[in-house]
């Protein structure tokens, strides 16, 4: 799915918002999940200490990543898992392809992996004659609609059940107009069960990888990762370098935080710990860089690598809720996406750190206490310095800085603004003024506070 010119967030958001009823529904659905997270968090008295501990563990990971990677690799090999390293998305895709080709597998089932979405793995394999089916229901729906997931945990949160029903009618032959979620899920269950039973290759993501023991954990609610993996001849796990945790016992902390942050559940239904291949099965794990070491080197932004992909920042972000994940034009959307994406392609994603009011709610819900809103501010400075701000914006800012750095100039401008608003309001109240589109301008009072103060300077209250 290539795009010639990506529209920026503001344009995509503007289009999404036109359907106000849909926006209200989308916004309400995600806010409800934020509320469930709050309820779950408030049931754990030590919640804030857990966040702090998780944050510190992840700081230790990224500051000792070299050592943990070596330890992890050694243990994986001991456990009988073949380890691969991929520098780029392309290299990752090549590795997956060669593993499957070696066993003459041309059909693979895949459970949720944002990394493989980032790498555009499915397209790569399809172009080379390997069919890939996404087994997570939400991702399956997005796949048959030829659209990327809009949310990392809830892939089709932006779709109404009628639209999903229509897709199932077209692709799975269900009755036209059928939109009941339970019935649709039963149809998908039956269809995907057949996929699980017939696919010799299965690929999963990795939620957590334990350096100490060489095992990795995959969390799902649907059971699709397990259905694919335990029936496969070849099982592949794709993992970003940053998914490591040092010791097994740390899983206690992360698994207590993950599902509660993501959906308000105390734990995902399945938390599967893969350590050794099944009898007669081959297991592979691909360690992927694809820009992560570059982010690791950025002092102000490396903490973004602590992310455990819970999606809670998206659920709380009012901009995300009201503009939809697809308006971020990046696999990972929302607040965390906005601090990861500029590292991948600063030009393409220069608009994302500006798609925020810097309200800070994201940083507060993040289970690993990433200072997301601080990083958004800092990315803005970098993007401007690197020259990715629009020229008109730079000129406007320079003018503003020049005006505001002189008491005389700022007074003159203020006076002028008030005068226009009082006497010839249409100079400012017109369609060229974006403020004015849906809001009235403030009124222009007769005198500023400074003017009043100077006049009344010697009076007592």
């Amino acid at each position, binding site marked *: 799915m290539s795009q010639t010119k990506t529209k920026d967030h503001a344009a995509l958001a503007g289009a999404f918002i036109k359907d106000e009823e849909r926006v209200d529904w989308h916004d309400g659905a995600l806010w409800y999940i934020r509320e469930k997270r709050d309820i779950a968090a408030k049931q754990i008295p030590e919640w804030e200490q857990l966040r702090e501990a998780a944050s510190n563990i992840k700081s230790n990971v990224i500051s000792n990543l070299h050592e943990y990677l070596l330890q992890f690799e050694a243990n994986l090999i001991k456990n009988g898992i073949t380890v691969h390293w991929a520098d780029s998305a392309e290299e990752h895709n090549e590795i997956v392809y060669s593993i499957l080709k070696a066993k003459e597998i041309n059909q693979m089932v895949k459970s949720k992996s944002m990394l493989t979405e980032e790498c555009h793995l499915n397209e790569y394999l399809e172009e080379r004659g390997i069919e890939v089916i996404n087994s997570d229901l939400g991702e399956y729906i997005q796949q048959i609609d030829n659209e990327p997931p809009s949310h990392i945990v809830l892939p089709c949160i932006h779709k109404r059940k009628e639209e999903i029903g229509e897709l199932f009618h077209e692709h799975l032959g269900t009755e036209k107009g059928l939109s009941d979620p339970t019935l649709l899920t039963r149809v998908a269950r039956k269809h995907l069960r057949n996929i699980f039973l017939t696919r010799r290759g299965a690929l999963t993501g990795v939620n957590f990888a334990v350096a100490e023991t060489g095992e990795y954990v995959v969390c799902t609610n649907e059971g699709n990762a397990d259905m694919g993996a335990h029936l496969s001849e070849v099982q592949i796990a794709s993992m970003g370098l940053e998914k490591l945790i040092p010791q097994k*016992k740390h899983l206690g902390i992360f698994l207590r935080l993950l599902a509660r942050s993501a959906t308000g559940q105390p*734990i995902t239904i399945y938390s599967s710990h893969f350590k*050794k291949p099944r009898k007669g099965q081959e297991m592979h794990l691909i360690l992927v860089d694809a820009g992560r070491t*570059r982010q690791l080197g950025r002092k102000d932004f490396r903490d973004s690598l602590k992310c455990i992909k819970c999606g809670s920042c998206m659920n709380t972000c009012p901009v995300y809720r009201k503009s939809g994940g697809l308006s971020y034009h990046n696999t990972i959307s929302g607040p965390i996406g906005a601090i990861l994406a500029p590292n991948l392609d600063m030009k393409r994603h220069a608009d994302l750190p500006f798609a925020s009011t810097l309200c800070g709610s994201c940083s507060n819900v993040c289970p690993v206490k990433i200072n997301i809103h601080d990083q958004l501010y800092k990315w803005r400075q970098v993007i401007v310095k690197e020259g990715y701000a629009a020229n008109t914006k730079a000129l406007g800012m320079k003018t503003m800085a020049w005006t505001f750095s002189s008491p005389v100039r700022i007074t003159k401008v203020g006076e002028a603004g008030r005068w226009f608003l009082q006497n010839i309001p249409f100079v400012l109240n017109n369609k060229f003024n974006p403020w004015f589109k849906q809001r009235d301008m403030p009124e222009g009072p007769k005198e500023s506070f400074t003017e009043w103060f100077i006049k009344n300077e010697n009076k007592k209250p």
Partner: protein
Amino acid sequence: MTTREKILDAVLKNQPATTTLPDTSVFEGDSNELVQKYMDVFKTIGGSCVLVKDIAAIKTFITVNFDTAKRIVTTLPEPGDSFELISDNVDPHSYDDVELALIKAHFSVAENGAVWLTEEVMGQRIIPYICQHLAVIVRAESIVPTMHEAYKKIGEGDYGFGGFIGGPSKTADIEQALVLGAHGPLSMTVFIIE
């Protein structure tokens, strides 16, 4: 230079100064009333929880509540009528038509209703996922309060595969409507032996 070397070099060059690991031994659960806590949580997840005296009671419960004409498998020794012993020597695909699987957990966790299973108690890895209905036996005294105690119990864990299972499979991908029974079992029953 191989990719491996290239990546490891970049990591070593870019990683910041080391920070220490926090002391996580401070996290501890409350060990009171674990059975009741477990049962309350498991019910809210959409599972069924039954207190029983012994295995015989479980078998009776199953014959009453499940269709014994369909395939029921178990890891229990001396399965008896209606129950088939799981073999770890057959093709996992052959378990596609299992209606109910009855297995034993190592322990369960009160704060989230999850049971901990490893390959050795599953019979085969696929069993608890492929069956239409899952039944798990838990000894009351094995219930732990939180995941911290759980990982203490699991320890180093020398298994090829292990998993927490916290209820029937589910999805809310279609308009956030909760549906029990996604790709894993449609239901889960936990029998607590006191």
